[in-house]
């Protein structure tokens, strides 16, 4: 039930907006976010944005994953 999906913001009008994922566009209520801009990735749950996705943190997680794979390859 807590399923939430990352979507990209395409329109903002006050605390309402639109966002899309894979070509599907939906109305999104943005009232829970402090500042959000066009092009930001947001986490949407049942029509409401709960958080902005932090691209720097996402990159750090991926970097950690890549590092893990490299250790594996060099230790073989």
């Amino acid at each position, binding site marked *: *039930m*807590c399923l939430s999906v990352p979507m990209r913001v395409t329109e903002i009008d006050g605390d309402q907006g639109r966002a899309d994922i894979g070509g599907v566009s939906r109305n999104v209520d943005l009232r829970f976010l402090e500042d959000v801009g066009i092009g930001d990735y947001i986490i949407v749950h049942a029509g409401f944005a709960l958080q902005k996705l*932090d691209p720097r943190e996402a990159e750090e997680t991926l970097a950690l994953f890549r590092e893990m794979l490299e250790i594996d390859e060099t230790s073989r």
Partner: protein
Amino acid sequence: MKHLDEYRDAGLCRRLSAEIDRVAGGREITLMEVCGTHTMAVFRYGLKDLLPENINLLSGPGCPVCVTPNEYLDRAVAYCRQEETWVVTFGDMLRVPGSRSSLIRERGAGGRVRLVYSPADALELARQMPGQQVVFLGIGFETTSPLAAAVLADARRDKVRNFFVLAGNKVLPPALRALVDDRQLGLQGLICPGHVSAVTGADIYRFLARDHGIACVISGFEPADILQSILMLVSQIVEERPRVENQYRRVVPDEGNPRARELLEEVFQPRESSWRGLGTIPDSGLTIRQAYREHDAESALPVKIAPPVEPSGCICGLILRGRRRPVDCALFAGACTPEHPVGACMVSSEGTCAAQYRYRRHETI
């Protein structure tokens, strides 16, 4: 979404699993996830098969639909039988059997039941049908409840007097306390629900680490996220340093979402609540505050219901506590299937029984 493949990379998952095995060093370790979306991912990607045998991963009461007691469903059924009253809900609730009927059965028999994607759609229905009473089923944890709070605030502001919420909303920490107090489970670590945490932040888990010595990691939902979280938990347990860590930093800031919490507290207040499987737990549910009472279905739309009845032979309660597995139930995959569910864990796609049936029916893992 960019990089999704990387979070699902099979080589990376094998590597994480080998590292979990190495760090655990053969120790018996019991972990639990308490989020229906994690339950689904664990079964869908076969993560239990990737873990060494000494890591015991349990599924807990993480599906709000599954822990909703029959009495609540019976009330929803009673509403949809009333003249000029519509029951509006998320799709997961439609097929859950109550004591004597379900909403899908009622709809087939002419009951007024509508499905929505968002609570905002439920309020919109009420605006479009001013002569009808619209009752939205308020089910969900901290992730979903702020949304119900938002539409209640809008309904009050715009004087949408025919809009009501039947509050069955629940909060996680008191239920987590009940689980860690259950010594029979011997729980050592918790995979904390990422999207509940997106609202609550990390602080709600601190008492688990501090007072109960439980390792806690807030986790994302991709296979590599979950395996990395398990690795972090195993490391905490081996080092004997239980604390709250956050693997899902790309979505969950430590402080969560203060705006969502503020609105939640403005509209709802804690109350005792009954959980399927866990029983009645103080302060584990939410009720609508006095200022919003005219939209509270419970007080504004009184209805008589017969005493609730539980199905015989169903062990959903024990499964929700992590005490039994779906394959331990005599009804599993025989009398109880997703097409003809007996218990709630088989109905909701996020239920442990439904996830096991869909992805791993023939295994006795």
